Structure formats: C-alpha cells, structure tokens
C-alpha cells in the first residue's frame, strides 16, 4: 500500500512536471500559431515608395510599420525590392541597383562616368513636388505618410504626383479603414498569422479571390508573436467590387518582423479605385513582396524579388571544407618538412 502510494505520488509528480513543462510550450504555440488578427490595435504607420525604371516601368510599394519612423533603406528592404547598396562610411549607403537595373556594389555609379550619366536619383515627396534627397537612404527617416521616390534617370525624375493614399490603395491597403471592415474580418483556418494586418486593411474596393488562403499558407513566415484571435469568424466578408476602370493586380502585405515584409496574399484583378499612375493604359502586377509594378501599355512581368538564400548549401559547405582542409594539410606538410630541413 505504501509502495502504491509512493508510485501514485511519483506519477503525479511526473505528470505535474510534464504539465509545467508543457504550459509554456503551449503558450508559445498559442502565441505563434493563431491568426494574427490585430484589428483592434491602433492604426499602423505607413510610408510609400515609387520607383521609376529606365524603361518607364513604375513600382509602387506601401510599407506599414509600428515604429515612429523608418529609414529609406528599410523602406526599400521592407518593400521587398531587389536592390544593391554600397556603404560610403559616414555618408551612409548609396543605392547602386534596384530590381537588377543599375550597377554592382563594387562599382556603384558605373554608368555615371560618361554622358548621359545614369544612376539612381533619390527623391522625397513634398506637398506638391518631388525634392532631391542629398543624403543616402540610410540617412533619411520617413514618418507616417511620407513617400520616397527613386528614378533611374539623367535629368527629369519623371515621378508621378501621387499621394500616400493613392499608393496605399493601389497596393491594397486602406489608410482609413472603416470600423465595419474590421468587424467583418474573417481569417480562415488557412489564413496564416502574418496576414492579419494586411487583411484588416484591405481596401473596400477590392475583391479578393480564394487564392488568398493558399498563397498565404505558402509564403507567410511570421517571426514575431501576433495576438491570437480566439474565435475568428468562419468567412471573410470581402467588399464588393465597383466598376473596374483599369486592370490591376494588387498585393497585400503585412509586416511580421521588424526587418522584413512577408507576402501573404494575392488578389486577382480588382479595380483600382482611382489611383493616379502615370500611364493612361495602366497594367499592374504584384511582385509578391509588397510592391506593385506598373508598365505603360503592356502586360507587365513581375520583378519579384527573392530573398537571398540565408541557409548555406550543405554540398557547397562540404566542398569548401574539403578545399580548406587541403590547404591546411599542405601547410602542415610544409611546416613539418621545413622543421626537418632546419634540424
């Protein structure tokens, strides 16, 4: 009886220990696995980005952030654009290339030494014009509503007179969400965490199609713990489309980390309410990473930026290790032989 009692006590102790160990784990899972609906939080800050390529292609991006400001470089980074910068010490970073157009980092202004001199000109949007930025993007801080512009040009910047609201709308955000939109928000089971903020700010004039969920599942990688929503509604109420005036594809993005932006959902052609892109025949596509590309007069190709491979390839590592081992072995051979000779 005594033995049985001890066993029971022992088992209960083990069970309590397992439970104690599982509770934080469950809490951790609950904090990371739930849908990232933060619709009741305060509206996030947002900054716009307009990039004009040499062939007249425009890339629009809207980036949300929780901090008071972000740097111009961080704006480019969060927008998911593929860009190359080169550090210039205390002067900050200079942008050498965006989406493959430009120069390599080791010769950042390679096309500026002859006439016509091309390089990425940096501008900021003022009340009614674009102002040249003398500092690099790492030295500029953007607050809510600010817009940065980049133009691959030799003279006139050619940037359109857009507003932050137009960029937000074009890219699938709504800077002034109505309360009803939040109330009817419905992340589904396949709607992964990082989509919450984006979904909460989907513009009322957009129509999202079912590929929303699948795309989100495939690409969303949140790294911070969003607030879980205990009982998400079963279906999302998507706003009804108005009469489309242009063929546009929008990409909705949500920031899940402090340093990157995660593409979470893609909606099929939906009417852009009244954005003011420069070209009359507007065709837009998403980059899959938060930016919208607009090419005049043609169906665009996505200049999707791919994040670099942050994980080393095992075979490459093994090969490099083998080569390094050969060099080290040669060094040991040389040292041993030299000692023999000297002795």
């Amino acid at each position, binding site marked *: 009886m005594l033995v049985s009692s001890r066993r029971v006590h022992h088992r209960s102790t083990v069970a309590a220990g397992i439970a104690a160990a599982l509770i934080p784990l469950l809490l951790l899972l609950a904090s990371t696995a739930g849908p990232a609906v933060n619709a009741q939080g305060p509206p996030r800050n947002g900054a716009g980005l307009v990039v004009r390529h040499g062939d007249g292609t425009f890339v629009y991006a809207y980036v949300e952030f929780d901090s008071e400001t972000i740097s111009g470089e961080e704006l480019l*980074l969060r927008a998911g654009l593929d860009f190359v910068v080169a*550090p210039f010490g205390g002067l900050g*970073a200079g942008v050498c290339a965006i989406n493959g157009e430009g120069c390599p980092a080791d010769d950042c202004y390679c096309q500026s030494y002859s006439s016509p001199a091309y390089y990425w000109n940096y501008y900021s949007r003022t009340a009614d014009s674009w102002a040249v930025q003398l500092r690099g993007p790492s030295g500029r801080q953007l607050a809510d509503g600010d817009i940065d512009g980049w133009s691959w040009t030799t003279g006139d910047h050619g940037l359109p007179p857009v507003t932050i609201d137009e960029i937000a709308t074009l890219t699938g955000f709504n800077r002034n969400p109505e309360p009803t939109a939040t109330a009817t928000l419905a992340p589904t089971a396949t709607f992964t965490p990082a989509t919450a903020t984006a979904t909460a700010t989907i513009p009322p004039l957009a129509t999202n199609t079912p590929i929303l969920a699948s795309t989100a599942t495939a690409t969303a990688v949140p790294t911070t713990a969003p607030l879980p929503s205990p009982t998400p509604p079963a279906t999302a109420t998507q706003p009804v489309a108005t009469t489309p005036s242009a063929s546009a594809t929008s990409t909705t993005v949500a920031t899940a980390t402090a*340093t990157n932006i995660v593409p979470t959902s893609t909606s099929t052609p939906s009417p852009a309410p009244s954005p003011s892109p420069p070209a009359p025949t507007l065709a837009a596509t998403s980059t899959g990473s938060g930016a919208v590309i607009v090419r005049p007069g043609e169906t665009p190709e996505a200049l999707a930026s791919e994040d670099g491979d942050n994980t080393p390839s095992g075979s490459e590592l093994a*090969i*490099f290790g083998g*080569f390094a081992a050969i060099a080290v072995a040669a*060094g040991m051979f*040389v040292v041993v032989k*030299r000692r023999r000779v000297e002795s």
Partner: protein
Amino acid sequence: MSPPQQLHPVAWLLWFLAVGAVPLTSRQPLYLLLTLLVVIVVHLALPAGEERGNPWRLFAYVGSTVAVLSIGFNVLTVHTGDRAFAELPDSWPIIGGPLTYNALVYGVASALAISSLLFAAATFNAAVRHMELIRRLPSSFQQFGVAGAIALSYVPHTMQAGRDIYDAQRARGHQMRSVGAARAFLVPLLGNGLERAITTSEALETRGYGSTDLGSRQKGLGRWRFALALLLLVTALPLLATGRIAAALFVALVAVAALTVGRRQSKQRVQLTGWDRPSLAIATAAIAALGVILAAIVAGQSLSYSPFPRLVWPGFNPIIGAAILLQLAPAFVAHRVDR
C-alpha cells in the same frame, strides 16, 4: 631534400598576380579565406631567417593586425544592413545607429583581402631578387625600373637600417624611453633609408641599365610581343562588352605597351635565372588560375558578393576554389630560394 632551387622571377610574378586577383576583385569571404590560407602556406614554405624576407614578414603582420582592427571600425561606422545586433544612440556622431552583422561580414572580408595581399606581397618580395626582375623589364621602361628599384628597396632596407640604428644607439647607452628620444632614432633612419635607395638607383644607372642595343633575339621576341598583344586585345573585348571600360582600357594599354616598348634591348650582361620545370609549372598554374578567375568575372557573378542590404550565405564554386588551390604549387617546389 632537393637541392637549392631558384624559381624564375616571372613565375613568381605570375603567382603574385594570380593570388592577388581574388582579393583585388572580390569580397567573397570563402574565396578570400582560401586565398589567405594558400598564401600563408606558401609564405611558410620559404626559408626562415632570410635577410630580405623578415622585414616584409613584419610588414605583413603589422598590416594584417591593422586590417583586423578595421573590422571594428567598419562595424561602428557602417549602419547598413538587415541584421542588427546592437544599436548605439543616434545622437552619437558617426558611430550612432544600428550595428549590423552585414557590416561585420564586410569588415571581415575586407580584412581577409588586405591580409591576403600583404602576405602575398611579403612572399613575393622575400622570394624574388628585385634586381633580376627589374633587369627583365624592357629598356624602354628604364625610368620606371629605376623608380621601382627605389620603391621596392626602400621598405626592407629602411627596416634593416632601423635595426642597425637601434642596436648602435643602445650600444652607446641611448635609452628609447620618451617621444623626444625617438628623434635620435627616426632622423638617421629616414636618412639612411633614402641614402640606400638612391645608392641602388645610382648603381643601376652606372652599370648601364636602360642603355639600348638591338640584339639578335629581337626578331624572335617581336613575334612573341605581337602574340601577347593580340591575346591581351582579345581579352579586352569581353571586358568592353560587359561595360568594364576602365579594365578594358587598362588591358588595351598593356597590349599597346607590349607592342611598342621593348624594341630596344638592354645590353646588360648579368646572368639571369632561366626557366626550369618548377618555374614553368608555377607559371602554368598561375595563368590557368588567372584564366578561370577572369572567365568567372566576365561570364557571371561567381566572384561577386555583397552582404548589403541582405546578409546571405555566399556560394562556392569548386572550379574557382581549385584555381585558388593551384597557387599552392610554390610551397612544394620553393623549399629554398638561392640568394
């Protein structure tokens, strides 16, 4: 042990160009690390205690130490990248802002490149008799040769003189304990180094270096010069096509120089080292490595790497790695350099 062996200075020159190609053109840390390993192994293969080698070795050690210190400077002043590990207050001038792993990686890569170049230069200068290399220059380059003689001899001779002066001053009871006392060391050091260099250049002139005479080998050499110029011009074309105008111009300039200069030959009669099998092997390996690296630069981005704005893992091409490893060849044949 093989008998004392002296490699051809042009083979060493080609080796130096080959091992310097990666640090001069890339900040890819894996290739740079491999290059540094190779250079150090070859450097270790040289005999210790050489009079000319030690000053350059010290030079390389000091330079590499400064390069390592520059990593911290890079981290503190470059606030760019996507991987921050700390942040200093923005109110701090220059160093205020986020400290990133990107800047750390770039600093390490730069330190590897600088150290590789310094040890390569130390190895080259310890292994090659400068005067022999200069004598091989075409006589049209006599002015450059004299300037090169002064430049190349200045550092090792000055460091040797420094040791002599230091020993002499200590023998006289002079204590180097204050900054003021350093004047008794620095002034004769500077004067001595300059005097040695000038003496060297005067000796070159006195012995007729740079005088001209059309030799019997001129016609045969002319064909080789023409072939070399043609090869260089062909090399310049892809550089021009890929927008590397400065590099193309440089190669074209060398091609023109190969055609125009050297038509006059020096009448110096000093016996020069000839080509032997080890020298040919080293030269062949160096040319092959240079070809691989040049092809990688022209054909793609295999060598290029930038940790900005995103820190990504660098790739590794085994062909380029093998080309770098080929530069180990001197370590196995240059056991001893006859002075």
